[in-house]
């Protein structure tokens, strides 16, 4: 384990040195060629996939085009670090970072944008395999029974039905009735029945008023 760690450290160091070297020797005119091969998606053996695909280094600074067998080269690249991406509208390919030092030594590694110093090497010449087809579209919702049942409108319909059908049966059950009564006894004093209050208010209110008026008259 320690050895591996050491190795990693060395790699990181060397990587940093590469970067420094790149900055110092900006004027070096040696040009290199990045090579690799792009593999098609297995199930889509359609012709013309090479035409739809191209390879892009550093977001379009350099292009590489595919031969019929999928191999490509990106020529005229000075030493430095390049993000090599395969551009295909239908399949996802993982980008690879290719580093070329001023002596023309190549190294390819996985792209890690967050921890830029982390190095996971990948073989060079590059082998680009598709990860998955792109999923650009949302799948339209299918009609499903559960969806239908949990639809608020259906629930609105079912709920009264349940109330009508099941409640009387619960009420008929003697035990629950007892429970209810108990509950009712407990709360009856705290909570006067709303409907009663309203009815008494609407019907009895007038009488009381008239009585009150009468009482007032009597006093006079």
């Amino acid at each position: 384990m320690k050895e591996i760690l050491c190795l990693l450290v060395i790699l990181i160091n060397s990587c940093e040195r590469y970067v420094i070297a790149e900055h110092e020797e900006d004027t070096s005119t040696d040009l290199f060629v990045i090579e690799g091969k792009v593999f098609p998606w297995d199930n889509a053996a359609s012709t013309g996939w090479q035409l739809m695909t191209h390879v892009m280094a550093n977001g379009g600074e350099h292009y590489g085009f595919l031969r019929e067998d999928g191999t490509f080269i990106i020529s005229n690249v000075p030493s430095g670090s390049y993000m090599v991406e395969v551009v295909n509208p239908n399949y996802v390919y993982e980008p690879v970072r290719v580093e070329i030092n001023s002596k023309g030594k190549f190294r390819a590694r996985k792209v890690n944008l967050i921890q830029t110093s982390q190095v996971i090497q990948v073989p060079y010449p590059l082998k680009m395999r598709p990860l998955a087809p792109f999923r650009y579209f949302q799948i339209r919702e299918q009609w499903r029974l559960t969806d239908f049942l949990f639809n608020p409108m259906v629930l609105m319909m079912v709920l009264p039905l349940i109330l009508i059908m099941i409640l009387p049966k619960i009420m008929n059950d003697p035990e629950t009735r007892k429970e209810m009564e108990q509950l009712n006894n407990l709360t009856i004093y705290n909570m006067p029945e709303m409907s009663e209050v309203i009815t008494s208010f609407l019907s009895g209110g007038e009488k009381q008023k008239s009585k009150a008026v009468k009482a007032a008259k009597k006093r006079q």
Partner: protein
Amino acid sequence: MAPCAWSFRGNINRFLDIPILQCLIVLIGLFNLSLCLYEDQVGKFDWRQNYVGKIKFASFDTVSTAKKIIVATEENVIAALNLKSGQILWRRVLEKGYGGHIRTLGGVTDGDLISVSGGVPAIVRAWDLATGHILNEWPIAEPNSDRIKDVKWHIKDGTLHHILPIYNSGVEVTSYDSKTGEKLKTRRVSAPFISRETECVLAAPYLACLKGDSSLAVVLLIHLFDTNAQSQSVTINTIFGAGAQGPYKLESVLGEGPVISINADNDQRKRILVIGEFPTPIQRDIAGDATLYVVSVDNEKILLETTYKNGKIEITATNLLSSAVIPDLSVTLTHASIQSPTIMASVCPRQTKGITCRHLLSSQDHSIALLQHNKLVWTREEALASIVAVEIMELPMSDRDQAIETEFDQKERDVLSMFLRRITSQINQARAFFQTILDLVPQQSNQRIDLVQDKFGLHKMIVAVTSAGKLYGIETRKGEIIWQFKLPNIRGFTKLSNTMILYVQRGSRHFPHPPQCALLAEDKETGEGVIYTFNPITGQSLDGLVKLGYKIKQSMLLHVATDDFLRGILILDVRDKVHVYPDSATAVAASLGKNIYLFTADQTTGILSGFSLSYSTTQELIAHKVWELLLSPRNQRITQVVAKNPIERVHSQGRVLSDRSVLYKYINPNLVAIVTEGIGHAHKNTLNLYLLDVVSGAMIFSITHKRVRGPIHIVHSENWLVYSYFNEKGRRTEIATLELYEGKIQSNTTVFSSLATTKLPIVERQAFIFPASIEYMQETITEKGITSKHIIVALANGGILELPWMMVDPRRPINPEMREEGVIPYMPEIPVHMDAIINYNQSVSRVMGIYTSPSGLESTCLVFVHGLDLFYTRVAPSKTFDVLKEDFDYYLIVIVLAALLISSYVTKKLASQKAQKQAWK
């Protein structure tokens, strides 16, 4: 009764919980971030058009089984076009700019396709003619890197010849195998007369050079592949006879056979010289503006002269040597979309019916056309590959709506006349209705029936101005070109980006006044400003091309219209004098003088200055400089000046924090972002961003990024800025955002004033990693600004991403415990969701700009992407909350309502029966 009622309530509560939960889920669903397209919506409201650009090299592929045309263009594209329809069979887009500049294309007649492109060293690519795959590519070694411009290329029989004239010595010809790149041989042909001043053209296998400028000028011919051959010389006098005047111009004639043309008398006269073992000058004058092409018919060389006069194209075919006119092959043609064409390629095969010639024409307005015998088979509007200015216009009202509008638009309000008008218009409507029912005379209309405003304002007209000076009106439903117009002799203000400015002076809502757009550009010859006003719906010119007679420095659209709803244009010329166009708007401008401020930014001097018009009198507008700022050009260069979209509205004035207090946005309409890139050794790879109030000249905020480089893309809207750059240290693209707040108290709740506000805003900022390269960014815009903002990002891989602004919100908390409503915790990397790619697999190449426009619906924003390809779609950043969804279940709602209705009746019946039964008990 009481216990029953109580329990009832309890049960209701218990049951109600579920629907409430459901509702909650539905609500959450509404606000989730997915903004996808369904597969069946493909092509429903989006379209894409592919272009190739202005043709540079072309040739007919007559070798392959499927006949086609191979073109290479100024946009660094190599493509194959269908001979019959002009559609693109395959297209390869090379590197952008200088790196992909196509230097030569050849070998098509031999069955292969070789292209040489790029800078130093150039890349030679061999393509498969039929499929467009690459066969091989190799870099060509360049000994003299600074002389790449003088290199001439010749491709013949699978060999690529690299021809470089060496001053005072000779011509170096290096031959390579075009497929493998193997160097075959190098030879040097002696030609000591070549100097820096000699003008040489390649007329393979000869190199023709012009020496001297007076009547003693000599055309020298060198055979490139025969080292023993002596150079031949032909004097100008033997070509033109005596009396020709310089300066002379040498040109190689396209087509087959070594032929050159010489212009004399200030391009008034032209003669040709047929090169061979014995060069033969043709003693016949050709019009100076004619373009030439040599085609072989039955082993005989035919010269095609193309002239263009008053809209008429004339192609005259003559026998090259005898100068006898061949009327069968000559063509006269008038067509609106072709102007000053040049034959780029031509073939004349002998068929059973006789000889039919096919000419590929490339016009001055970048359009290309195929002419078969004397019939135009197809045209392609390649000018659309280089759009420089766009506006999206509303379509006018339909005739019926216009009639209603005229009915209520009367000034006098007399009861009787209004009643009469009502009656007449109703009679008219009734008559029109019966006419349509009975299929009688179709309504005579001055506009196309479908080009009218729709209910939701989704159908609009795109007005596009191209770098060729051609204007287009494109409707948005299918992308059909409705009108086109070529403006002669105009160019953009800056050489690099070719900017022209398009203003909408009057929209489509002011019937009976026609909508009006104005284009501001520069005259090609004088560099002075020109203005062209036109109706954006029909393309008709309104005032024609007006030459202003002064150079334009800055311009703006007045925010107040004249009585006929026309908004004037204020122009500041280079001598700081203010002009108003049209003149009728001067009074309006003068009355607004006190509140008008202008600012200018000079890229070369780095000076930004602000002008006020408050010293104006009613007769004259005077621009008075009120502030000046220097961004020293020695250490930085202004690359972008970005203001907010003037039609933008901000609906929400603040942001509610978790403690229920409001953080007010700093919404300064005069705020402009200025981006500069550092130059020189010390400041290399730095990026400076300044936020400047251009009315007061106050610097609001500035920030410097070190070790970053361009390309920088910036979006400025509401109270925030989003910009992207390449971080050299992390070697990744990053997006940074700034957000400005006034604080917890709003200084002025009604109007913002740059002069009254002195408090600097609070700036929130954050940077994010973006895992793709960006080509362009633009924000969405809607009518009232209620809908949340998204950023439309064009990616280098051809995708167009809709990125919610919420993802780049600088207030995304790093500490996940400090959560605010509607704010996602900070994550360094912004994920690129594939379902947010609004153009799905319809990749677009080399995006130059994105134009967004509000539609009639608050939820929907129209997006037009232009570059090499055009793409149009609409997006709904907060989902379509104001219209029913496309997949709204009408049946379900009908069924449910019906079921409820029936069940209520049934239960009513049942209840009455039950009551009856109980009564009997």
